[in-house]
């Protein structure tokens, strides 16, 4: 595939966009410190870097959502000032932001054309808008998404498609995608790449950000690496740069094993810590049996929308099961009660980290201790010294960066935010840990650390359930794998007895037919 692209794309060497010496300061943070970037028409330029390296900040400057403190931007060789999002759009810069920026109560078509509505005399031309939207969705390979449906009703993956359609609804010369694949599964990513290739053939330049390095190999032409707000390498040709070197450029160290070694697990034969029987949430999934022993990691694989999140949310009590029982250490949990689950020693790191997992505008230590407040209080009075100490200990053991537990969680990078959520349950010393997409949007370095952490938790006797859309991750991390399709468990077995293609077959079955 990659060869195809390099052959068919007419390489132009003249830079469409050049950014140099870009500096962006936030109070107390130097987010960008002299970044260089040049992008050519018709290429896919990948932007790599750890969480917090400044990738999103850079592209927000490009889309004029931020103003740089220093530096200049050349567009087709001419210096431009990007003063407002409109100005950037006028040049043909379209952006798909890392955090989906759609309006839930507007329809798909209305979202696509928000800000540049098709209208006459202020009246929306709904027919034309819907028609154009359908065309765009079709071009993106998703004619099944209804143009009149409200976006809030769509799955995250479909919302991502709508964002794409939105970016394509204008005359685009430069398309920026900030981690578009985080919510997509395999098939969807392939589809996305097909669209990107079509665009580059037309001479559109693409800036692509992702933490999944294998995607860079598949789609990228050249690479720029950011580290701590500086450009450490720019214009690297994808073919000539081994992954290990990329990792080294990004993290400043080399990472040998991404997944931790599975130890031998004597405990895996003991009584189950978590035992789920016949769990059902009507209309979503049914007949789910699941048991996890102390020290065991069980992975749930499946397509986006298969109902894996619902399964673990239900067994956590965040949704009320319509049938079935959940036992922890033999004790049955009250249905639909998170409080009961937490009391029994269950913890959940939810899928939507920011809205469901964290109190973004509060300090790190408060996010860590929120489930353990009782431990630091007597008669309701908090001993905040002890509380901070407790939080700091866990944060340090997880190497949450930057150090210091008084920082607002909002300002942490994705990987570190995830560590904060894990720290919460680590502090609570829970018996069962439910992890929903624990590494979504997390960079390679932090990802490795999180894997190691999960493994060491398991080794210390915690029963772990991991949901992930990355089959590789499930297979690499889990001891046992359950494959979920359309709300049913279709396969269960040890992780080392199944391979990626088999899982994909299981997952796709029925979809393909």
């Amino acid at each position, binding site marked *: 595939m990659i060869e195809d692209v390099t052959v068919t794309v007419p390489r132009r060497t003249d830079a469409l966009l050049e950014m140099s010496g870009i500096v962006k300061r936030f109070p107390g943070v130097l987010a960008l410190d002299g970044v260089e970037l040049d992008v050519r028409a018709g290429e896919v330029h990948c932007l790599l870097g750890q969480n917090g390296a400044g990738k999103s900040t850079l592209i927000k400057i490009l889309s004029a*959502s931020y103003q740089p403190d220093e530096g200049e931007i050349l567009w087709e060789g001419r210096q431009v000032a990007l003063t407002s999002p409109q100005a950037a759009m006028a040049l043909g810069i379209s952006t798909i932001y890392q955090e989906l920026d*759609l309006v839930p*109560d507007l329809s798909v078509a209305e979202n696509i054309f928000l*800000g540049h509505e098709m209208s006459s005399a202020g009246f929306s031309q709904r027919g034309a808008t819907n028609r154009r939207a359908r065309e765009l969705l079709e071009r993106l390979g998703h004619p099944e998404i209804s143009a009149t449906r*409200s976006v809030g*009703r769509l799955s995250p993956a479909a*919302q991502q498609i709508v964002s794409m359609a939105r970016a394509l609804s204008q005359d685009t010369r430069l398309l920026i995608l900030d981690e578009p694949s985080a919510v997509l599964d395999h098939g969807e990513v392939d589809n996305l790449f097909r669209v990107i290739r079509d665009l580059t053939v037309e001479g559109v330049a693409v800036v692509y950000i992702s933490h999944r390095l294998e995607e860079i190999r598949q789609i990228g032409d050249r690479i720029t690496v950011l580290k701590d707000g500086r450009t450490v390498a720019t214009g690297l040709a994808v073919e000539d740069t081994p992954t290990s070197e990329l990792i080294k450029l990004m993290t400043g160290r080399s990472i040998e094993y991404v997944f931790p070694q599975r130890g031998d697990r004597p405990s895996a034969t003991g009584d189950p810590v978590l035992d789920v029987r016949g769990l059902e949430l009507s209309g979503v999934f049914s007949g789910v049996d699941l048991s996890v022993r102390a020290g065991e990691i069980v992975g749930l694989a499946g397509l986006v929308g298969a109902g894996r999140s619902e399964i673990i949310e239900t067994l956590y009590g965040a949704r009320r099961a319509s049938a079935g029982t959940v036992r922890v250490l033999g004790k049955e949990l009250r249905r*639909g009660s998170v409080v009961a689950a937490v009391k029994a020693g269950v913890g959940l790191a939810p*899928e939507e980290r920011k*809205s469901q997992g964290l109190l973004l505008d509060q300090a790190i230590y408060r996010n860590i201790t929120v489930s353990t407040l009782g431990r630091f209080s007597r008669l309701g009075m908090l001993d905040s010294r002890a509380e901070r100490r407790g939080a700091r200990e866990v944060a340090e053991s997880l190497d949450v960066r930057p150090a210091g537990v008084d920082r607002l969680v909002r300002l942490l990078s994705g990987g570190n935010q995830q560590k904060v959520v894990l720290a919460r349950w680590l502090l609570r010393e829970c018996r069962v840990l439910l992890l929903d997409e624990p590494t979504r949007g997390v960079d390679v370095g932090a990802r490795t650390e999180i894997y190691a952490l999960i493994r060491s938790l398991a080794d210390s006797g915690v029963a772990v359930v991991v949901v992930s859309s990355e089959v590789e991750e499930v297979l690499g991390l889990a001891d046992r794998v359950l494959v979920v399709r359309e709300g049913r468990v279709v396969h269960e077995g040890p992780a080392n007895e199944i391979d990626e293609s088999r899982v994909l077959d299981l997952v796709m079955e029925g979809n393909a037919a």
Partner: protein
Amino acid sequence: MSDQSTNPGTSRAPDVGAVENPVAPTGDTVEVEQAAARTEASTSSGGLMSGPFGRNLGLVVALLLICIAGVITAGDRFASVDNVMTILRYGSTIGVVSIGMTFVITGGGIDLSVGAILALSSVWATTFATQNMAEDTHWVIMVIAALAVGAGCGLINGVVIAYGKVVPFITTLAMLAAARGLAEIISERKTQIVRVDGFKDFFSSEPGGIPLIVILFALVSLLGWVVFNRTTFGRRTLAVGGSPEAARLAGINVNRHTVMLYVLVGVCCGLAALMLVSRTSTGSSTHGGLYELEAIAAVVIGGTLLSGGRGTIVGTVIGVLIFATLTNVFTLNNQDTSTQAVAKGLIIVVAVLLQQRLARRSTST
């Protein structure tokens, strides 16, 4: 430097997709369903008749129940054309204000100063100066005065909120105090009587047997519906209220839009002031007392989300009618104020509960 333009993910959770994501288990099991129900409803906004009807089923049922109560307790006294006109005339003023309020609330704001702006507009339109000018030229001068005062107050609200970044609640609370105070100063606390006959004649006319102010309310509702659902302004209002950051990134001038929303509600207050002036033939600093609460209540009961991003004009109109009819039925039955207040409190809560349950049922099948 441009600190204002450089902020992502502002006051709302930045991840829009996640905030109102139906997949997310919001609140608790009940709420998830509600969210689903609500979104479902708004997707089907295709047809005018089918959409609003299903969505507002609970409200319509509540209104019907009140009407039935009216017929049972007051019979023909309730179910007569005259009485219906009485209800409509009564609901018109607050109705026009509520339509404007629907826009502001949907756009993520709130306006506590509507009653005060109404009072100020009414006083300004009826000052001797204005009336003298109107006599010399044309009574339209009074109309222009009222609308201009409303728009001006709205403009001040909007600018302070959008550019001064003072929260709407505080800004409009301050405007409430200031506008009513100014109205008192201008009128010297006297009720100002309208002496311009053309004005009175025009506004109290009843073309086709329907009072002009009722026609005005109908027109404003219709216009409001069209603007809300069929124009870019209306759609952008939803975007600004639902996700100001997304709206900004989409190239919408959120600040300017916010200002326009407050000007719009200000103009509505000006129009309502004219309606009230014609109805009472006076301008007074006491006009429009507690209209803010009544308008907000009608809007919210109608199904508009108080936190912005979701609104319905049809719901607001039904909400206004519910309150007006309720009051009428109470009057017909000679109820004393206190019992009314208690009953109203109960009915409000029951109506909302009913609305929620029915909306869920009607969309989950």
